[in-house]
C-alpha cells in the first residue's frame, strides 16, 4: 500500500550493513526540529491570527506542533503574539524563566517586535527588552502564512543548532545581559 507519508531525510553519515553513524548534534537537531511544542502567549489581535494558524485551514500541526503546550515547563518555543504592556512584562519574563532549555522565542507581530503603533507610556517597546528573541515576524497582525514562516525559521535554527551552544560563553553573556542566570 502506498502512502503519502514523508519520511525525513537522514543526515549525512557513514552507512554500512546494519549500522548508520552520524554526529549526535545532527540527530538531536533533526528530532527537535520536527517536534516543536509551542507555548502560545497570545495577548491581543495577533492571538486571533495565531488561532487561525492553529485551526483547520492553516493547520500548524503539520509542522510538528500538534500540541500547544500551555505549560511553560514542557514547551520548546514561546510564541509571543500581541502587545506586551509594561504591566505584563514581568509576567512574560517569568514565563520565559520557567521554560527549560533549549528554548526559542518568536515575537509575532509589530507590537511584540517593537511596540508597533503603540509608542505609548504603557506599552513595552518590543519584548527583546526583557527576553532574548530568536525570530521576529513582522505584520500588524501577520497573516497565518507569515506566522508559519516564522515557525519554519525556528525549525531551521533548531535543526542546525550545536548542542554546545547553550553552554557557550556567548550565550551565557546574552542571558546575563537580560539579568537571567
Amino acid at each position, binding site marked *: 500500500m502506498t502512502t503519502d507519508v514523508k519520511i525525513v531525510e537522514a543526515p549525512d553519515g557513514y552507512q554500512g550493513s546494519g549500522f548508520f553513524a552520524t554526529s549526535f548534534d545532527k540527530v538531536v537537531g533533526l528530532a527537535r526540529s520536527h517536534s516543536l511544542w509551542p507555548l*502560545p*502567549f497570545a*495577548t*491581543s*489581535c495577533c*492571538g*486571533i*491570527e495565531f*488561532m*487561525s494558524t492553529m*485551526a*483547520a*485551514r492553516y493547520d500548524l500541526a503539520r509542522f510538528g506542533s500538534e500540541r500547544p503546550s*500551555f505549560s511553560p515547563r514542557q514547551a520548546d518555543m514561546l510564541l509571543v503574539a*500581541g*502587545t*506586551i*504592556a509594561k*504591566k*505584563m512584562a514581568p*509576567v512574560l519574563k517569568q*514565563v520565559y524563566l520557567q521554560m527549560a532549555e533549549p528554548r526559542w522565542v518568536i515575537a509575532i507581530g509589530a507590537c511584540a517586535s517593537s511596540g508597533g*503603533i*503603540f509608542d*505609548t*507610556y*504603557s*506599552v513595552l517597546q518590543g519584548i527583546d527588552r526583557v527576553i532574548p528573541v530568536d525570530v521576529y515576524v513582522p505584520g*500588524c*497582525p501577520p*497573516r497565518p502564512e507569515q506566522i508559519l514562516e516564522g515557525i519554519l525559521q525556528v525549525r531551521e535554527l533548531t535543526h542546525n543548532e550545536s548542542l554546545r551552544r547553550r553552554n557557550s560563553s556567548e550565550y551565557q553573556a546574552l542571558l546575563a545581559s537580560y539579568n537571567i542566570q
Partner: protein
Amino acid sequence: MTETSVAPQNNADLAKGDQVQYVNELTTLNLGPTHPATHGIFQNILTMDGEKIVAGEQTVGYIHRAFEKIAERRPFYQITTLTDRMNYCSSPINNFGWHMTVEKLLSIEVPKRAQYIRVILMELARIADHIICNGILGVDTGAFTGFLYVYEKREEIYEIYEEICGARLTTNMGRVGGMERDLNSTAINKINEFLKSFPPVLKEFERLFNRNRIFMDRTIGVGGISAERAMSYGFTGPNLRAAGVDYDVRVMSPYSSYEDFEFDIPVGQHGDTYDRFMVRNEEMWQSLRIIEQAMKNLPEGPYYADAPEFYLPPKQEVYRNMEALIYHFKIVMGEIDAPIGEVYHAVEGGNGELGFYLISDGGRTPYRLHFRRPCFIYYQAYPEMCVGSTISDAIVTMSSLNVIAGELDA
C-alpha cells in the same frame, strides 16, 4: 464559610504541636494572567473553599495601550486603525462605528448604498465575533470539533474582508463619508456563497451543542445573573439580552439604515451561560437574515458621500485633477479642521453598546475621545457571577461572557 475556617496562625503555632483543626481551610488561587482558559490576559484571584469559589477579585490592565491618549494626537481618519485593535474579533463594527461618529460631528449624510454595505459587513463581523465566542465555549466544555468546524467558515468571512479592504483581521475598512471602494463582483459572489454555505454549518454546530446532555449540564444554571443586576452592572449586548432585557442599539437608536431591515432580537430567560450561548447562536441567524435582505435590496448609487474635505478622492482623480490633488494633500497632512462639537454615538458591537464620546475643539485631532467599551463595564460582574460555583464553572462563565482583552483594557 469564612467564619468556620481555623488555620494555623504562624509557624510557631505549628511548632507547639497543638492540635490545629483544619475546617474549611480557604486557599487562594491565582487564575491568570496567562492561564490558557482565560482567553486573554486578566488575572482573577479567587478565594477557594475546596473547589467552591468564595470570593474573587480581578486585575485588569495587562494590555493597556492608551488608545484614548493616542487618539488625542491623531487626525480623525488615522483613529480608524486604533478602533480595529479594540475588539479585534469584529473590527468592521468598530471601524464603522467610529466613522459614523465623525460623520455625525461633520453632519455628513452617507448614501444608502454605503449604509447597506456597512450593514452587510457589520453583520458579517458580528457572525465572526459570535463564532469565536461560541466556538471557544465549546472548547472549554470539551468539544474542540465544533470550534474547528465553524472556524473554517470564519476564514471565509476573512476572505470577504480581504476582497473589500485587503486585510483579514485589522481591517481599517471604509472611510469617513462612506466606503473606500465599492463591493466588487468577487466580494458579492463570496457573500452570496457564504449565505448559502454557512446555514448548514451553523445548523450542524447547533445540533452538536443545543441538546447535548454534557453541554447542557455544564452550562444551564451556570454563571447566571438576574436582569436587575445585569442592568446595574451595565451589561449590554447578548449578555444583557440573555438575562431577558430586549435592549439592542440597532433597534433603539437605529444607525446606518438598520430601520430598513426586519429582524428579531432574541432574549434569554435566566442570564446563564446556556442562555448566552443560545442568544449568540440565534443572533447569527438574525445576522444572516439581515445580510440576505441587504444583499437583495442593495441600492444602486454612489458608495461615498459628497464631502471632499473629508473623503479622500479616488486615486485616478488625484493624478488628473488639481482640486482632488489639493484635497488629497490637505486630508493626508491633516490640515482640515473639524467643527467644534460634542458627540456620543453608539453602535451595537459584538459584545454590546460600543460608544464613542468625541469632543472636538475645532482642531485636526479630537480634543478628547472616550470609548465606551462594553467588555470593560460588564467584566466587573464576574466575581459575583462565579461566587458559589466551582472553578470549572467559572471558566465556562468567563468564556461565555466573551471578554476581549484589547477592548477591556483600551
